[in-house]
């Protein structure tokens, strides 16, 4: 009889533990709370630091060897069309990404060594170009594809 008592207790304990585990770890109802304004600001500031770094890289001749910077041909990130990638690009000869196109520009017109596609510098340059093109519609073969984006003042992003 003693055995039976123990068996009942073990079963009860197992059910209770399973319920507790489900409530704590598997609860499908409970979501993360919305991101607070303070958290949003913090995340945006981290992004803008990358954008600023990308702006600096965009306008330095140090990425190449012949004095040219990305900004020579692409002021305000113009004619980079970051919102349209991935797409087929004739110079790449394939469907490529903005990062691959940035590397093509560094390698061919600027005659410099290509950047690590996943490195911080490349991500920063992508962040700069993309930030300045927020909200731009994709319209293949239209003027906007090789024009610039309007920038009213400053560098094109909030600068601290």
């Amino acid at each position, binding site marked *: 009889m003693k055995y039976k008592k123990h068996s009942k207790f073990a079963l009860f304990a197992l059910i209770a533990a399973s319920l507790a585990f489900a409530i704590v770890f598997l609860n499908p109802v409970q979501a993360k709370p919305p991101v607070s304004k303070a958290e949003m600001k913090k995340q945006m500031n981290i992004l803008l630091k990358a954008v600023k770094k990308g702006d600096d890289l965009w*306008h330095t001749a140090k990425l190449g060897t*012949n*004095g040219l910077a990305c900004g020579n041909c692409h002021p305000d990130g113009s004619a980079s069309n970051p919102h349209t990638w991935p797409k087929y690009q004739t*110079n790449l000869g394939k469907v490529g990404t903005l990062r691959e196109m940035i590397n093509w520009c560094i390698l061919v017109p600027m005659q410099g060594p290509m950047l690590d596609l996943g490195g911080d510098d490349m991500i920063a340059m992508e962040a700069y170009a993309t930030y300045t093109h927020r909200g731009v519609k994709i319209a293949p073969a239209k003027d906007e594809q*090789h*024009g610039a*984006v309007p920038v009213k003042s400053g560098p094109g992003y909030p600068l601290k």
Partner: protein
Amino acid sequence: MEKVSRRQFLGMSTKAGAATIVTGIFAPSLNSMIGFGGVAQAATKKIKPFNFAVLTDAHLYDINDHKFDGILEKAVSDVNKISPRPDFVLYAGDIGQTGLEAELVKGKKILDKLKMPYRIIPGEHDYYLDMGKAWRGLYGNEHWSFDHNGVHFIGMNSILVKDFWTAKKLTPHERMAWMEELECHKCGAWGVGSEQLDWLKKDVKNLAPNTPVVIMTHSPLWDYYPRWNFQTYDAPDIRKILSKFERVVSIHGHVHQVLYNKIGNISSAGLLSTSWPWPYPPIKLPYPDVKMNRADPGDFEDGLGTHNVALKSDFAGMMDYRAFSDLLPANLKRGLKI
């Protein structure tokens, strides 16, 4: 007004070669040209027809065998082959990129291969390392005028900004680096300034209103896209001073693109560079049909070129954009009426 004889002109531009007197008229059928631009007015003084070439924006670096050296060499060679031979060449600024004397010297060496005399004005890339000292030492005055075959030619320095560097304690190299960035948002708008405006007033004071006038500046004499200094802040004053003339042709560098506008008596044309093309800024062009095709970044010569301007006896002008690659739409392949 500075009267310049042909001999003086040759001397000033340090060229020894004699220019051919042009009697022919470079004029393809006007009916085939795009239908706007300056219409010659009956009262405009008759001139002796001639043509001249225009080059601009080589942006040379102090790097041996740089690709832009070769493109400027090609441009000079192209101009030397134009027939009939241009009477002279105008250069609209930015021969150098970072203002180094070595860049300006290299540019002069290449330009001196022109078989005709040339006149030149500074751009911001030539200027803000030493505030134009080396440029003046090599090329002379930043503004000038001369008369040729009945046309009054004016060149002015339009890239003078207010002092942004002293208060910030920038070094000359830092000042130059700021100005090198087209979208420099801390450098301010540029213009010709009050001294040159006074000079211009005096220069044109005794000219009759029916005198044909050509004015060259680095930047456009209208508010095109101020963020990239595609403007000259005191252009309204310049236009006012020149308003007494029946017709004025304005040509400018800096924009690295085919461009046209007409304001009052002034028709204005932008120029191709010999370095890199720029995309059109995000505004509606006043003459949207005057627009070059998109350049291929894989073709280093696409978007670049030289210019030949032919002036007829009634001062009707035709600008021929001599693009190095297939850049021009059909309506511009035979010239732009200016």
